[in-house]
């Protein structure tokens, strides 16, 4: 992990105790949701590619704590935690991973393509960099319509090497779009380290050619993330000033649940999990400041355990999408000569060998 300058020892006296407890609860919820998701993948309840937020809980909860309801979020495919922290209950999220009709994208999207219009969660995107220009476009629309709010373009460190990122930086600055380039710098894009992939490994500097301001933040410190986002969010909204946040965190496991993580030194991974565990570190902080006690931590753990189990039960009990709905939502405006229910059933019967 890249070294981040020690922040001044944080006094928690200005903090709202209920907020602090809520951050902890949300981080633990993401932690357990992801651990159970990994179990469900092994049980073949979940298919396709599946990327976990383990180790990145503080980056997510810190971000969401600073955002307002009118803000929008575009993310990459490693987004289970984001949609949950944005307020979508874990049940429909797990149901999406299970490919169920009750899922947030009705089973059509899966782990990499979560979405909730209601929460301005504008999607997980699985083509690296794809979400970045979209987020700038959303910010452009806000400005155009004179609406409040900002847009977050979340991405990974590896994504800062793709062309779309640079074009987006340029356009965002040129057109004064209220967008935050929120880079989860977990040190790796698959097996490629930041140093291997980026000639400028200080990712926060990558906006320099475009006069886009950048900062590096300790992504294991939920309060540091929240405060930086708050500050830059404010400037983006009031001045149309985009910014890069280089949020340093530690990826606990392989790139996806099926990655054996052969390219990282196991000793470093072990040490990383021990020293950069945002959930455990935050629990320690809360205990040290006597904001919570062991009993509260236990009750919270039980609550989270129950909620994640309920999400799994909900997903298990939910129906699969129906075959006849295969062509549903193909077009928003219906036009003639497009297939419908009957066509779906006919083709499905044949493809299932039921003619």
């Amino acid at each position, binding site marked *: 992990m890249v070294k981040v300058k020690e922040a001044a020892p944080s006094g928690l006296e200005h903090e709202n105790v209920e907020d602090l407890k809520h951050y902890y609860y949300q981080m633990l919820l993401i932690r357990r949701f992801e651990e159970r998701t990994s179990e469900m993948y092994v049980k073949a309840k979940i298919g396709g590619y599946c990327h976990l937020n383990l180790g990145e809980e503080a980056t997510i909860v810190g971000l969401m704590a600073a955002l307002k309801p009118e803000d929008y979020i575009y993310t990459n495919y490693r987004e289970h935690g984001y949609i949950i922290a944005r307020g979508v209950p874990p049940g429909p999220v797990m149901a999406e991973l299970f490919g169920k009709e009750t899922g947030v994208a009705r089973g059509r999207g899966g782990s*990499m393509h979560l979405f909730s219009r209601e929460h301005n969660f504008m999607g997980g995107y699985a083509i690296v960099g794809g979400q970045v220009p979209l987020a700038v476009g959303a910010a452009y629309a806000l400005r155009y319509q004179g609406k409040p709010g900002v847009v977050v373009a979340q991405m990974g460190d590896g994504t800062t090497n793709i062309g779309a990122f640079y074009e987006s930086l340029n356009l965002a600055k040129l057109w004064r779009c209220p967008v935050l380039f929120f880079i989860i710098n977990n040190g790796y894009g698959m097996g490629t380290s930041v140093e291997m*992939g980026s000639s400028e490994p200080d990712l926060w500097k990558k906006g320099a050619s475009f006069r886009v301001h950048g900062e590096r933040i300790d992504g294991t410190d939920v309060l540091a993330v929240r405060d930086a986002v708050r500050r830059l969010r404010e400037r983006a909204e009031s001045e149309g000033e985009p910014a890069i946040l280089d949020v340093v965190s530690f990826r606990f496991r392989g790139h996806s649940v099926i990655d054996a993580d052969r390219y990282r030194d196991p000793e470093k991974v072990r040490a990383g999990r021990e020293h950069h565990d945002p959930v455990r570190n935050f629990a320690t902080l809360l205990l040290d400041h006597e904001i919570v006690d062991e009993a509260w931590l236990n009750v919270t753990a039980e609550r989270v355990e129950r909620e994640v189990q309920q999400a799994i039960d909900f997903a298990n009990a939910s129906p699969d999408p129906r075959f006849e709905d295969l062509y549903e939502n193909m077009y928003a405006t219906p036009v003639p000569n497009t297939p419908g229910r009957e066509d779906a059933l006919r083709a499905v019967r044949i*493809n299932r060998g039921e003619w």
Partner: protein
Amino acid sequence: MPIITYRQALNDTLGEELARDPNVLLMGEEIGVFQGSYRITEGLLQEFGPKRVVDTPIAEEGFVGVAIGAAMLGLRPVVEIMTINFILVAIDQVVNHASKIHYMFGGQVRVPLVIRTPSGGTGQLAATHSQSFENWFAYCPGLKVVAPATPYDARGLLRAAVRDDDPVIFIESLALYDTRGDVPDDDDYVVPIGVAEVKRRGEDVTVVAYSRMTAIALQVAQRLENEGISVEVVDLRSLRPLDRPTIIESVKKTGRAVVIAEDWYSYGVTAEIAATIQEQAFDYLDAPVLRVAGLEVPLPYAKELSAVSKPNANSLIYAIHQVLAGSSRGAPWAK
């Protein structure tokens, strides 16, 4: 002859070509330290070092362009695009540059480049990760597009592609990587680009396929033999150039044809083949040609919904029965 996997055939061939010609080099995401997203390049970084096996950042447009430029000066890059879905961010370099440079500059410079990439969908990878775009490249004059179905052809066509002086799009398939077949290890054979192969002789109906669909066609032919139906399987192996004579010769013999491909039905590869048959073997046909292809949706994630949206053995068997019955009801895969 040793029996090896399609993956092994590719891996061995890449290793041999690197050893044979110092101008050959591999480029792509995760091909070295990570050992290849699908382990096609496993061990090659260790054997040949980082000058020959180049890990790239996630920058497809950039490194495909770099490979084209390097090819213009005599290197022979073999680029891996992790899956064909990600080639879209590089399509300008392939279509507007690689395919044009030799012809448009009056034949003064060559672009000896191979782009290897798996196409198609398996395992619930959902809409953005399950597509077949080989027809986009087969459409483009100046490119060569090959799509081997067996380990033998994978090896022979990869050799041909690496030694060819034009840009070759080499289509693989995740579902084929673990399939096995005979591959001679002592013989430096090459499978010619632009030549199809009758993979199985039959009398009653011709099935035209390539890549994973050839594997399915061969299984179906085997099954139908027990029902007394004799299926001839033409494996295209190359989409551009397209070996029309081999298709036509087969259809003239059987009088019936089914064309199967994994891409979407409308405007896909099957349309080109069916049109060719109609133009060149019309008088020989005893039934309309039927096309089997993907249902026209962004592939849904949900397991069952995903599975029924791709062509498979059931769809092919249905189509063969329709064609044998002389049906002109048309294909059920689209409106």
